[in-house]
């Protein structure tokens, strides 16, 4: 009977404990990545089998504790309390055991049995701090499974232990943490007051503890569930003690002290670790910045060097495919061949070309994250980022945005909190990507001469960044204000990269891109093709042109004719497409020189300046839009950004044109 039931195992752990590695090893590729219902926090579930039983594994968000202060912590604790998994496995880093056990102390008062996975045993030994798993087990009454998940050692044993635990009804009577001595009476009193009124399935002793901690959610819940007289009594009791939060934390650490006394060997005092040696430079206020720029730029250059040829190769392959398919469709109605070649094949080609890039990006940056270097980047950039309403970890996606916004927006996933992640997702598209800068390098010299061109280019890029900075401040103060915990973060030890972890990560991101963002891109590419084709196959009389004509008043404000406007709008499909469209619409000869001449004839320098400003700030390209929808889990934010950028781009473009007209 037991063999048929699916056993649910929750996987918990603080950040940087190798929890994802454990999850990946347990589930292989049998995992599903999505989001927790209604949230933008990532959810991973998977399955594993052992000895005839099926295990459903749920990867809870990595959290330091289970307070009500962040959506990640609420998700983790609500899952355990409401869904009541059979077991929760807490992954710990043996070299960081004292601190990692804090999460275990938060979980023990809940009714789900805890098993400790003692990971990174090798690192602990290397750092001169080996841990004795048996001693830990003896002291706590909790099953402890030592492992080195990165080398696939000990993970199967974990499943075996879970299996035995669930099936053999082993006795589970762990030592539970108590509150610090000077608050024990308070805890007893509070618990007495709430007895019988705690809604299921919340454990009473856990609720009492949370009330002492001042937990927002639990406080609200008990206020509703207790009659006013008793609630007033509870409030009265709590008011007398202003240190309760630290008393609870203190009690937890006392438990940890008891648990680890016999299990951990004290290290030699003052031992300089490998981590500290590298960090002397990596976190130095001056050298740290240079090191970081060096490493990140090297990574970006490597990504471009490998990615561009592959992308170009794919695009060429697509053109060839188009040429092969064209004669086959010669007898079909024109619209079908147009749809297939210019819509579908082009769309699919664009998605694949982007994907090639993304895979390389994610591999490189996933590697840097895995060895622990990214925390140093966040540390070095934190002060600068806070000035625009973001924080250190958001720097990396912004930097990536200079080459391409698509992987940059996808890269915001590493940011720990939901609010900070959303902010980064919304601001990254404001960073001018390479396609936009290339447009700039093509245009500027045509109208402003070599010296003027450089000035224009630099000012436009800095200007775009200024708009991003100001938008960040606006976003922070007006649109998404919220409690900030302030800058306090762990700097994990460096460790050797685990290629399986990085590989799984790249695979998941690629798959997500293809299924979600990819379909958006394809759909819109076909849509735009349709607009430029209908109703009679000639772009000059198409719906797209009609839209362009309708916007002539706008164009006049900017000194642009409808063709330039349409070209601007096609930069929505891809920034690269804008140049191609311009060539077509202006009837230019099929060469760069031809386009250059046609452009110079079409608009004045002042209009060119306005056009460039608008182009730099214009709405994100299709691909970016697709990932924004994906990462923010809603069309609402994507459309908001679209509207915001549309307005800003044109407002500033018009302003610059009108002023330039007077000056030039």
């Amino acid at each position: 009977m037991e063999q048929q039931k699916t056993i649910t195992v929750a996987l918990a752990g603080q950040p940087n404990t190798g929890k994802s590695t454990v999850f990946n090893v347990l589930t292989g590729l049998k995992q599903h990545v999505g989001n927790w219902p209604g949230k933008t926090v990532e959810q991973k579930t998977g399955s594993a089998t052992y000895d005839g039983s099926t295990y459903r594994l749920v990867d809870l968000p990595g959290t330091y504790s289970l307070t009500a202060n962040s959506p990640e912590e609420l998700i983790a604790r609500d899952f355990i309390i409401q869904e009541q998994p059979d077991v929760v496995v807490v992954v710990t880093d043996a070299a960081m055991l004292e601190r990692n056990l804090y999460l275990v102390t938060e979980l023990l008062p809940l009714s789900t049995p805890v098993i400790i996975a003692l990971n990174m045993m090798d690192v602990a030994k290397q750092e001169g701090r080996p841990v004795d798993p048996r001693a830990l087990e003896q002291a706590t009454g909790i099953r402890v499974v030592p492992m080195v998940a990165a080398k696939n050692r000990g993970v199967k044993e974990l499943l075996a232990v879970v299996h035995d635990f669930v099936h053999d009804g082993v006795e589970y009577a762990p030592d539970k943490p108590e509150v610090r001595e000077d608050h024990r009476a308070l805890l007893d009193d509070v618990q007495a007051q709430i007895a019988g009124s705690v809604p299921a399935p919340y454990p009473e002793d856990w609720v009492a503890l949370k009330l002492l901690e001042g937990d927002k959610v639990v406080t609200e819940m008990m206020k509703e569930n207790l009659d006013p007289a008793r609630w007033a009594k509870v409030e009265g009791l709590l008011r007398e003690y202003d240190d309760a939060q630290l008393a609870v934390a203190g009690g937890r650490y006392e438990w940890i002290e008891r648990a680890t006394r016999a299990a951990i060997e004290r290290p030699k005092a003052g031992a300089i670790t490998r981590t500290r040696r590298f960090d002397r430079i990596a976190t130095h206020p001056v050298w740290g910045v240079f090191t970081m720029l060096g490493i990140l730029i090297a990574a970006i250059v490597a990504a471009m060097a490998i990615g561009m040829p592959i992308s170009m190769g794919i695009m060429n392959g697509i053109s060839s495919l188009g040429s092969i398919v064209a004669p086959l469709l010669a007898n079909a109605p024109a619209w079908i061949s147009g749809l297939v070649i210019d819509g579908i094949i082009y769309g699919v080609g664009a998605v694949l070309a982007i994907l090639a890039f993304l895979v390389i990006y994610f591999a490189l940056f996933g590697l840097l994250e895995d060895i622990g270097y990214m925390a140093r980047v966040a540390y070095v950039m934190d002060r600068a980022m806070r000035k625009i309403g973001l924080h250190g970890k958001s720097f990396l996606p912004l930097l990536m945005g200079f080459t391409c916004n698509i992987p940059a927006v996808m890269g915001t996933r590493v940011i720990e909190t939901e609010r900070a992640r959303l902010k980064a997702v919304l601001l990254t598209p404001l960073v001018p990507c390479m396609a936009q800068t290339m447009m700039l390098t093509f245009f500027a010299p045509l109208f402003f001469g070599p010296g003027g061109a450089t000035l224009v280019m630099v000012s436009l890029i800095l200007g775009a960044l200024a708009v991003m900075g100001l938008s960040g401040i606006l976003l922070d103060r007006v649109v998404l204000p919220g409690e900030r915990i302030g800058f306090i973060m762990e700097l994990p030890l460096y460790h050797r990269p685990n290629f399986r972890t990085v590989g799984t990560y790249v695979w998941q991101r690629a798959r997500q891109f293809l299924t979600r963002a990819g379909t958006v891109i394809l759909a819109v590419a076909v849509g735009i093709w349709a607009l430029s084709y209908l109703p009679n196959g000639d772009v000059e009389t198409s719906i797209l042109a009609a839209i362009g004509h309708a916007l002539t008043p706008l164009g006049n404000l900017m000194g642009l004719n409808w063709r330039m406007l349409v070209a601007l709008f096609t930069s929505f499909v891809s920034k690269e497409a804008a140049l191609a469209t311009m060539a077509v619409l202006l009837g230019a000869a099929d060469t760069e020189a031809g386009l250059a001449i046609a452009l110079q004839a079409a608009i004045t320098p002042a209009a060119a300046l306005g056009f460039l400003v608008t182009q730099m700030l214009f709405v994100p390209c299709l691909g970016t839009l697709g990932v924004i929808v994906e990462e923010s889990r809603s069309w609402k934010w994507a459309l908001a950004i679209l509207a915001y950028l549309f307005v800003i781009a044109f407002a500033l473009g018009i302003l610059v044109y009108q002023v330039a007209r007077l000056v030039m």
Partner: protein
Amino acid sequence: MAPLNSLETGEVGVVQALDGGRGFISRAAALGFTPGIEVAMVQNFRRGPLIVVVRDTHVALGRGEARKIQVGKLVDW
């Protein structure tokens, strides 16, 4: 008693008290900052964030946050 950011590189202090909102105190406590625990200053350049070691973990803090942690220097004991 003095704020954490007054510790020089290489000095060790013992946490006495934590000021600040609930959110900060929870996060600080979860990372290991509780009264009675030793904190070693690893990097303090007078400006910019600091790095300390607490309960065997390297933790980086902003100066504003460090100001909320009161420590007593070990030598005072």
